[in-house]
C-alpha cells in the first residue's frame, strides 16, 4: 500500500470531527461517516489518526471499516456508478446491466477506471423499485436501464 502523507489541515479536520463526538470510542461509526463524507474515502493513514483520537486500536477501526460496505478505502471515480442489485432490480435484469458496465469500462465491482473517471459499485435497493433496474451515477438516478443503454449513459460523462 503506498503511504500517503496527510496534509496538516486534513489531520486537523479529522481531529475536529472526533472532538465533535467527544472522542468517544463508541462514536466510531459516526466519526467514520463524517470523515468519509468529507474526504471521499478512508485510507489507512486516516484510520490511524481516528484510532489515535478515539484511543482505540487501529486494527479495531480497520475491522469496522471492512465490516460495513458503506465505508471504502479506495477513492471513488469522478463519476461513481452504482447498480442496484435489490431483488426487484435483479429480476428485471440488473445483472446484465452490471455486466455491460463492467465490460464497457473494463473494471470490476469496487474498482475505478485508470483515468479515475468512473468507478462501479453495487447497491442493495435504493428503494426505487418501481423503476427497476436502477442505476445511479453520482446523484442522478437512471430508471429502467437496459444493457443497451449503458453505452449512452457512460458517454454522458465521458467528456466532463
Amino acid at each position, binding site marked *: 500500500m503506498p503511504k500517503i502523507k496527510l496534509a496538516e489541515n486534513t489531520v486537523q479536520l479529522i481531529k475536529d470531527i472526533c472532538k465533535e463526538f467527544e472522542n468517544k470510542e463508541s462514536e466510531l461509526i459516526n466519526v467514520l461517516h463524517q470523515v468519509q463524507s468529507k474526504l471521499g474515502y478512508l485510507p489507512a493513514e486516516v484510520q490511524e489518526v481516528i484510532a489515535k483520537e478515539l484511543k482505540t486500536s487501529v*486494527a479495531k477501526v480497520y475491522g469496522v471499516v471492512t465490516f460495513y460496505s458503506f465505508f471504502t478505502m479506495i477513492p471513488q471515480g469522478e463519476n461513481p456508478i452504482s447498480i442496484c442489485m435489490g431483488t426487484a432490480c435483479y429480476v428485471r435484469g440488473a445483472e446484465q446491466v452490471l455486466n455491460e458496465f463492467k465490460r464497457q469500462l473494463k473494471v470490476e465491482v469496487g474498482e475505478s477506471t485508470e483515468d479515475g473517471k468512473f468507478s462501479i459499485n453495487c447497491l442493495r435497493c435504493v428503494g426505487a423499485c418501481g423503476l427497476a433496474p436502477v442505476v445511479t451515477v453520482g446523484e442522478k438516478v437512471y430508471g429502467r436501464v437496459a444493457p443497451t443503454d449503458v453505452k449512452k449513459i457512460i458517454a454522458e460523462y465521458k467528456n466532463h
Partner: protein
Amino acid sequence: MDIVNLTIDNKPVVVKSGTTILEAASGVGMHIPTLCHMKLEDLNIENKPGGCRICVVEVEGRRNLAPACCTDVSEGMKINTHSMRVINARRTVMELILSDHPFDCLICAKSGNCDLQDMAHNLGIREIHYKGEQSTYREDTSPAIIREVDKCIMCRRCETMCNEVQTVGVLSAINRGFESVVSPAFEMNLDHSVCTYCGQCVAVCPTGALTEVDETGKVIRALSDPTKTVIVQTAPAVRAALGEEFGMEAGSLVTGKLVAALRRLGFDHVFDTDFAADLTIMEEGTELLNRLGKHLAGDKEVKLPILTSCCPAWVKFFEHQFPEMKDIPSTARSPQQMFGAIAKTYFADQLGIKREDMVVVSIMPCVAKKYECGRDEFKTNDNPDVDHALTTRELAALIKLSNIDFTALPNEDFDNPLGESTGAGVIFGTTGGVIEAAVRTAYEVHTKKELPKLDFEELRGMEGIREATIDFDGLPIKIGIAHGLGNARKLLEDIQAGKSEFHAIEIMSCPGGCIGGGGQPYHHGDAGILKKRQAALYTEDKNKTLRKSHENPHIIELYEKFLGEPMSEKAHHLLHTEYFDRT
C-alpha cells in the same frame, strides 16, 4: 443462590442458576466438545463468541439447537447432548470448518497438538461432503510469530487475548462473511504492527494458524559445526513445564533431566538463565535502592516507581503504548541478555575464544525472546549476544528428534560458572517472583540485616493486579505486581492519573508470568496447569540451599573478577540498556 433442576441425557442434574449447559454437563462428567470456547478459571480470561457451533445440544421444546457454551440452564430443561440430530449437526459443522482448512496436517507445526485435529478425530470425520473454495492468505513471518491465516477458523481466541487480555490491539476480525479473518490492521505484517510478540495468541490458537518461528534447524546446524562452541541457557519456567511434552504430570520439575537432555544434544556447556536472574537482581536491586535513596533524600528528578524490565514483550509494549514513561523502567537488561553479554565476554575470555566462535542458545518459555535477542542494542559488531532462542516446545521437538528418551534420563547438574543459581533466580518464572527475589536482596543490602523469613506470601498468587507493602525495617516499601498486559495497562494508567503510588512494580506480559508464556507446552485452556507449574517453581526455590541472589558465589566471583560492583561502568555497558519511543 437459586438452584436449577434439569436433566442432561436423562440424568437429573442440580446446579446453581447462571450455570451454562456446558458447565452443568461437565459437572456430571459429560464433556460436550468445544472448539472456540476457552475459559481460564481464576485468570479472568474467557473467550465465548458462540461462533464455532460445535458444542450444540438439543434442548427439548426449542426450535434450534443451542450452543452449550453460552446457553444458561433453566428450570426443568431437558437436554440431549448426543442425539442423532446433534451428532449430525456437529459433524456437518466440523466438515464445514475442514472444508475451508488446508489439508496439510502432516507437515503442520501443530500436528499432534492441534485442537482442530483432535476434534475431527473425536467426531469421526472420514469424509468431507461439502467441498469448495478455500480461503487463501499471504503467510506472515515476523521475528517471533508466524501467521498462517489459511488455517484460521475464526474462533477469535487470539483476538480476545490480544485485545481484552493484553490490550495490545494488534489483531481484529476484519471483513465479513466467508472473507472474514483475524488480522492486523490493513493486513500488515506483524513486524510492522505494535505487536509485542507476547505470544498469547500462539498459546491459545486451536490450529496451526499462529505458531512460533521454528529455529531448531539453526541450532542443529550450530551443534554440528566443530568450529563453534555452543552453550545453552535455560529459563526458570522451562523446567516446570517441559515434562508435559513427554506425558509427565503438569508441575513436574525436570531440571536434572533437562540438563541431561541438553548435554546429550551436544551443547558444550549447559548453563542456567537463573544465574543471570541472580545477576539481574544485583543490578536492578541496586538501581532500586539508588533511586529510592535519592527519592528519600528529596531529589525531585528521580522517578519512582521503578518497573521491572525482564520481559521483552512488556518492554515493547511500553515503547509503543507508553513512550512517555520509558525512563521509569529499570535499565537492567533481561536475564537472557545479561547471560549472553557475560557469556560472550567473561566466559569467552575464560575459554580463550572469540565471541564469533561462540554460539549462545537460550531455551525460553517465550516467543518474544526470539525478537529480543535480535534487537540491535544487544549486538556487538553485528554479532548477537544470544544467537538463538528456542521455546520450550521447540526444545521438546529437538529432544524427540534426537531419539532421547526424556523420561528415562538421569538427573544431572548445570555446568559452572554460569550454571549456579539461587532460589531467587528460580522464582523469576512466575508472576511475583522477580519482585520477591529483588526484595530479598534489597532488604538485606538496605537494612544490612538478615531477613527473618524468605517467603513473601503477600507477593504470591494469581490475582491479575496485586499490591503489598513490605517493611524495610521501618521503611514501608510499596510493591505492585501485574501480569497480563491489560493489567499492566491499568496499573500504569492509575500511576499516570496519580491514583496509586508504588516504589517498585513487577510486570510480566503473560498471564501467570513466564510459566504461562507463549512458548510453553499448550495448556489447552486448563488454568490448573499454570498453577501446578507455579507451585513447582516455589518448591524448587524452597529446596535450594541458597535463596538470595547476592549469596550466589559465582555472582560474587563475577563481580570480583570482572564487573567490579553493581552499576559499575562495565556493568552498565554490559548489563544495562536503553528504550525507544516506537510510536
